[in-house]
């Protein structure tokens, strides 16, 4: 399953990635992304036709939002770290991104199975 991601920096120089998924986002998929908190706004109860909205995070590592049943996931990661050390270790931010994307791939593969 192919996921497109567009990386920018937010106003506080935190890495923000917009992911475009091949399947709709639902609570089951979100639960597999490694977060430790989830807040769902039931907008569908306020306005007919509206979708619910999810904000979830892994404390201190990343914060994500999406419209449930939509296909766009916006994730903001911790502040960009310093240049990689001479040993080639990635910065903490890049490690967080890699971990998140591993979980995302695994969740999508499980959905496809």
């Amino acid at each position, binding site marked *: 399953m192919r996921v497109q991601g567009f990386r*920018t920096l*937010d*106003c*506080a*120089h935190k890495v*923000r990635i917009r992911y475009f998924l091949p399947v709709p986002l639902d609570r089951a998929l979100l639960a597999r992304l490694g977060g430790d908190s989830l*807040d769902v*706004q039931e*907008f569908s109860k*306020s*306005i007919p*036709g*509206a*979708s*619910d*909205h999810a904000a979830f995070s892994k404390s201190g590592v990343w*914060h994500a*939002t*999406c*419209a*449930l049943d*939509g296909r*766009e*996931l*916006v994730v*903001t990661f911790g502040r960009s770290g310093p240049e990689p050390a001479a040993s080639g270790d990635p910065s903490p931010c890049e490690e967080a991104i890699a971990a998140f994307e591993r979980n995302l791939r695994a969740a999508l593969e499980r959905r496809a199975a």
Partner: protein
Amino acid sequence: MTLTIPLQIDRARRRFLIGGEPMVFHCHHYNTHLQRSILDAPWVDSEPFLIGAAADVAFAQLTKVFTEYGAASAPHRKMIAEELYRWCGFGTFDLSMLDEEGGRVTSCNSHYAMAWQAKFGPLPDPVCYFATGWLCGALAAIFDLPLGSFAAEHVSCRAGDVSEYCAWEVRRGVPNYNIYRSPGAGKTTEKQELLEVDEGNVDYEGVYRALTGMDLSGDSEGHIPAFGVYLTRHFANYYARVTFELERALIQRFGDVGTLAAKPLFVESGHVCAFNMFGGIMTSTEWDALILPSLETREDWVHGLVAAVNALGWGRWQVAELSAEAATFVIHDDYESNAYLGMYGTSDHRVSYLAQGAAAGIMNLVYRGEIESKPRFTPDFYEHLFKADGNFHAEQLTCRAMGEKYTTVRVFRG
């Protein structure tokens, strides 16, 4: 201890109040641009009112909040003050080491320091005027002392890229800022006289209900990341005071020409606010979930955004006229007018500068910005929307601060 924030939602007037102070959402772009515009104004010593305006609103709010909670001890009051500061998105403070004589306090996550460095880069001078004033007002309220009992020096600032934290030295003594008396809720309408208007396909009431039900409060670092920006639940009276004190200083020096000099500064700050905050709202996942499903026409995008604006605490906006070429916005209880009336009485000129800039911003984003494509909000894009030929301009036609029923802003292509 978990604190229940004493947030009062004035639904009839589309406002929020805490401790009698009207609170409005604004983003870090507006906060820093407005402050820089004020600091850059020549011949005006703005520090006394940048600090004094904050001391005033903090003192007024916390005095009332302490009474509402029945908080009598200094430790309890400090906890309340810290929690409210964090909740509003200003950063965090630990006030425990401060006593009736003052002391030293630090913060590693001050909103203004973070915002300034992100937006403008490092600056050698401290930038957290609001926090400086807030400390002075808060301490006076905590220890049952009159406003103006403390002076404060912002001795180091994280925006300078040298220190990892901001630090203040607060001491009892002659205040190094102006003393004001907050107008509190200001002069509001007794009852808004709403117009019969076309609202397109947008459920204004539903959007208001949904957005005011969201938890938009400071995280553990005292930041509110939302809609792609960093929000603050800030004091309407702070914005009004620093804006109008600069204007009055320019008028005092240059006469009526002072108003002509001040207006573009404040309207431009409104443009910056609209570009970043409204742009962030309209490209957010919250918009995709709540508002986008209702939108069928380009005009609906304007209605959707105005419905969201009504949840910012800015007063109630209505769209009285709308086309691809022009629009008329009617604003009931705009916070600028309410504050002006409460602070200075009836104005002899129109003062809803933020409203003018924001209204022009709405039209530029929707009709020139291809906002549905979720563009990146770059400096070049800002120049294209607000400086290029064919952009929208705003003209204020009526103003509550001049004694009229409501404020009217007309927007048209230049």
